């Protein structure tokens, strides 16, 4: 692995960290619970790494571990999005003006 890949990754990590900080700082405390379940679902994007591991089937061990990893991450994706949407649907304003 060359150093440029490392630097490349660190740049992306730093920029995404700053964006995350600025964006999430603006999230209302009202929505901190759905925020956590949403970031959890997004974090399960790790599933892409696991999918490649299973698909490439380089060794039995990697395929087995990868399969369990895909199951775990997929359950986070599905469960995380469902519950986040369920929670957000419950938040209603007393001013019905915004509603169509």
């Amino acid at each position: 692995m060359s150093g440029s890949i490392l630097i490349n990754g660190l740049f992306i990590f730093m920029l995404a960290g700053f964006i995350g900080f600025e964006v999430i700082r603006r999230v209302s405390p009202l929505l901190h619970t759905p925020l956590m379940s949403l970031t959890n679902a997004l974090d399960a994007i790790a599933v892409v790494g696991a999918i490649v591991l299973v698909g490439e089937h380089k060794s039995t061990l990697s395929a087995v571990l990868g399969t369990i990893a895909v199951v775990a991450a997929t359950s986070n994706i599905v469960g995380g999005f469902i519950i986040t949407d369920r929670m957000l649907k419950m938040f209603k304003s007393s001013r019905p003006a915004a509603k169509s």
Partner: protein
Amino acid sequence: MNEFAGNQTIIEVIYLLASALFILSLKWMSSPTTARHGVWAGELGMLLAIGGTLLHHGIVDYQWIAVALVLGTIIGIPLGRVQMTAVPQRTALSHAFGALCVTLVGTAEFYLRTPDISRFMMAVLSMEVILGSLTFTGSLMAAGKLQEVLPQRPLTYKGQNFVNFLLLGIAVVIAVYLVLHPEEKQLYPFMLLIALTFGVLLVIPIGGADMPTVISLLNAYAGLSAAAMGFVLNNRLLIVAGALDGSSGLILSVIMSKAMNRSFTNVLFGAFGQVQATAAGAQEAKTVKSATAEEAAAILSAANKVVVIPGYGMAVAQAQHKVRELYDALTKRGVDVRFAIHPVAGRMPGHMNVLLAEADIPYDRLMDMDDINGDFPQTDVALVIGANDVTNPAARTDSSSPIYGMPILDVDKAHTVMVIKRGMSPGFAGIDNPLYYLDNNLMLFGDAKAFVGSIVRELTGAGGHV
């Protein structure tokens, strides 16, 4: 070869799109009016990313991918349909699943690549696996405590912190050795096992009231381990998602520990609660005033401004729907009812907001601590339902109190304070609350759900006799 390279470019472009959608998704979470768009953006990004990954040229076996995706969906659906009161333990469990995925992928990559692995890669991989496995077991412990399968009180023993630091130290030493000698793969399982054990021991001494901070911290670890995995796989989308999740967890941890006036290290290494057990005995001589549901209803209906302070006790008693009935009954009489939410009320960030929203209480009635604290002197009645330490005035006045300096809701400044509580036992932190002995305080002894129910009956049954 050309075709492969073409595929790879398409995948990278799809990942770029998905990264943008993830950032938008979090941006839209800033307000309840746009938040659901955020979920849709996240879902779209996720679908694109998974679809794009399936184009990966190295994939030869689609069968197991399909089986795993279906199985994960089958497990995920019930996890998305749990009751709102179970959201804290569900969240802890999903941190565990996320960390499990990262740990397994890291482990598989190690055995595939060793001994042909660069020092940098091995260092990042060790970080991924250590963070992932301690988050996995730590989150399982947190979920167990929240589900009350495990005791919620802190479990402590002498030399606990020493043992914990020692374990983490050994794991790091093994990691460093593996960085220098990646061919010594027999050491890898030890590193994994020690990190798994460390996760258990890290969360065991943490009490229920500290859960909001711990869940946030585990969230940050899960994000950081996913970002480390992004470095190992040279996957930029993963680095972005991990950094976003990591910064979210970190921000929430900072908010939570500020709201408790404690540092991370204090939450993680200083189980509190035992200190005050003796001091409580000396306070018994003080008297408290109590009131019945009928008296409470009369006071509430005579008020102009009422602020309700919900706490974990409301969640335990499942009283949120009765609280909604109380809100309706009082609003109908022209009383202005608002809710004061302390950042650490409940068991995770935003826990109370979700429960009250579930009970259909409009979110613009839910106020943050900073927004409502100035209003308490003009408040006729502050009704505390199942909250304790977050209303304790000793945090402002008594420098010997373990919670001294913690920002609290200034309910004692309201004209009348009413506290619904089962008995005089101290809260989770085990600290006596001088609020209960104040002249303007009335204790309403009973179960939160039952007591609010009887107040509502008094208010609605008595009709317009006030």
